[in-house]
């Protein structure tokens, strides 16, 4: 008789820990053939709230970390991802029977994280400037992270989209709360485990599983969230109401169905700070 597998409990990832939903709720996840896969934590508004607290708490340290350090941490994520290559393939295969597509997605996701890792210390060069003002002043502009960013990650290619969402947000020093694909959440749980072992400070990345329809409105109206990536919100009516809610404190928003390249995505969560100083003695 073969040994009995020890199955993983699929939990949330908040503040560097793996709690169950404070609501105690879970939902059943099935594979493509409707076979039961797991009971996954169903995040509540309070989990979302706790995630914002964790993300805000992590912001000052993460944004103050050197770009070199953030780059190393992101590269470490891709190393850990590579180590779990087969696991990601297996998980994605539950919903996608095309093996080569799945393998490709995992490798592209890993490569994407490497690409993000390399951006951390280039961003200021590419998006910053030294401004030749008409006067005796030294004047420069630098990019800075917007702050705490919420996101609903895209449903298709769940791993790749999750990596794009998280990587583009945190590389510049933002912290995030990401709501993962509801129907295919396992790679999100695995990615959380990768992140937990990649020197990413606690709270920088928070991953929630469950209904974004339920959680996203709480994040959209949350006054301590600075931006919202709505990419994965498919319901147009909900997207509209979320974007309206985001106006409460003028969150920066990426609308769903926006075709943007990855650099523009990165820039969507940046502020530009311009500093003036006179020169003379």
């Amino acid at each position, binding site marked *: 008789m073969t040994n009995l597998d020890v199955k993983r409990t699929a939990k949330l990832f908040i503040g560097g820990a793996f709690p169950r939903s404070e609501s105690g709720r879970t939902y059943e996840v099935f594979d493509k053939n409707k076979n039961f896969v797991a009971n996954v934590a169903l995040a509540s508004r309070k989990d979302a709230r706790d995630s914002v607290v964790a993300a805000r708490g992590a912001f000052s340290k993460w944004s103050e970390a050197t770009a070199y350090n953030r780059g190393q941490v992101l590269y470490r994520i891709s190393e850990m991802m590579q180590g779990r290559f087969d696991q990601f393939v297996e998980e994605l295969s539950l919903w996608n029977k095309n093996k080569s597509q799945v393998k490709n997605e995992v490798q592209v996701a890993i490569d994407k994280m490497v690409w993000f890792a390399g951006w951390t210390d280039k961003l200021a060069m*590419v998006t910053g400037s030294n401004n030749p*003002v008409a006067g005796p002043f030294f004047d420069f502009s630098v990019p800075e992270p917007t702050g705490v960013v919420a996101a609903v990650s895209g449903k298709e290619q769940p791993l790749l989209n999750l990596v794009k969402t998280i990587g583009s947000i945190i590389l510049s020093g933002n912290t995030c709360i990401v709501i993962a694909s509801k129907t295919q959440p396992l790679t999100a749980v695995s990615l959380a485990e990768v992140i937990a072992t990649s020197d990413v400070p606690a709270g920088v990345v928070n991953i929630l599983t469950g209904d974004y329809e339920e959680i996203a409105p709480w994040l959209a109206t949350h006054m301590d969230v600075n931006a919202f990536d709505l990419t994965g919100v498919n319901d147009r009516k909900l997207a509209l109401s979320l974007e309206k809610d985001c*106006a409460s*404190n003028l969150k920066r928003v990426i609308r769903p169905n926006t075709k943007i390249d990855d650099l523009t995505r990165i820039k969507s969560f940046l502020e530009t700070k*311009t500093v*003036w100083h006179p020169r003379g003695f």
Partner: protein
Amino acid sequence: MVFEYAPAPESTKIVDLKNNYQLFIGGKFVKSNGGKTYKTINPATEEVLAEIIEASQKDVDLAVKSARKAFKTWSGLTGSQRGKYLFRLARIIQERSRELAVLESMNNGKPIRESRDIDIPLVAAHFFHYAGWADKLDHAGLGKNPSPLGVAGQIIPWNFPLLMLSWKIAPALAAGNTVVLKPAETTPLTALLFAEICQQAELPDGVVNIVTGAGETGKYLVEHPDIDKIAFTGSTEVGRLIAQSVAGTNKKVTLELGGKAANIVFDDAAMDQAVEGVVNGIFFNQGHVCCAGSRLLLQESISDNFLDLLYQRMKTLRLGDPLDKNTDVGAINSSSQLQKIRELAESGTKEGAQMWSAPCEIPNKGFWFAPTVFTNVSLSHRIAREEIFGPVLSVLTFRTPDEAIEKANNIPYGLSAGIWTEKGSRILEVAHRLRAGVIWANTFNKFDPTSPFGGYKESGYGREGGRHGLEPYLKAGK
């Protein structure tokens, strides 16, 4: 009194005011389709300057149509052709700068010294800067062959009427967009004179359209389905409404909203220049400045002496006729703004802060508010949190750099901030940790077309000025 300055009024002869102004649509001045009219006044005298149209929904629609029609030809021009039109505009603005300055001061109430030496030269500089961008869009940071967005709806405030027009129109046109611009209700005149300048420059019809009016007209513009881009400068309150209004559309948005900047003075600052910087920070343009240094954060150990120097300096501020070349503080732009300032100032006194105003003689007519300082202010007071948009300074104190930064950041706004210290490493660290889009260290209220401007948090999003200011009017090349 010794050596009292005699009145030195700038002549208004250079300005040729009409009794009525029409809308500027499709390169022509046209009648309104059912729009009401209102009177625009000189806030320093309350005299009526002209009758202005409150553009109707139909008017706005015609303006957008005209911009849409012109978009094809304008975006089809080579960058260098577009650039040459913008250079022309810059030059004509320089040629007519005195006329523009006088008209600006008449309609806005700002001192002629400022409209002449700051506003109008910066307007020309903005057009000059973006003119040169028109044929270099490949270098705007969006890849090869970026494309314009289409028709931009632009809504500007009354505090720097023509300067805000230039911040909006110059980058939009350089990038190949066409525009419908709505000047502020109370200050439409220089925008209408700019329309004439567009005609003199032979700008193709419909590239710039100007519709006058109030909030309703602005709403028509924001909600118009054929607008691709909204650029707005004004209050956070209206900015929020715009952000809600464009939800679910493909309209791109730039918002430059309110502020409540901290101006932080450390004990080792160059004191006389810091005093001057604080004065310039809050009393420039009557404090009608979104990035005004309206919260003075003083290191406690120097606060008494600093305030003495500040009061001494403020006693020399000359309030009065905006057209007098020696006026430092002009008129409040409107009676409603004056009401708002008064109401907030009263709240300051009620909440326990101490008020001191410069001993200025207030003219009988017009809207005025003497430069005022509130001390004993705590962070919970309304005057420490709400944007007053007037010549009112709230003074708070701090003990350590950390405390200064914490207090400076403890506000939903994040537009600008000031730092005064002679210690370089302190400047860089404080500048780094302030959550604001523009940091002035050992200076304040400086603007330049090459220097990106815009806020964090509820002060809006997007940047104006420099390469950054071009991005919101372009989409990435394919």
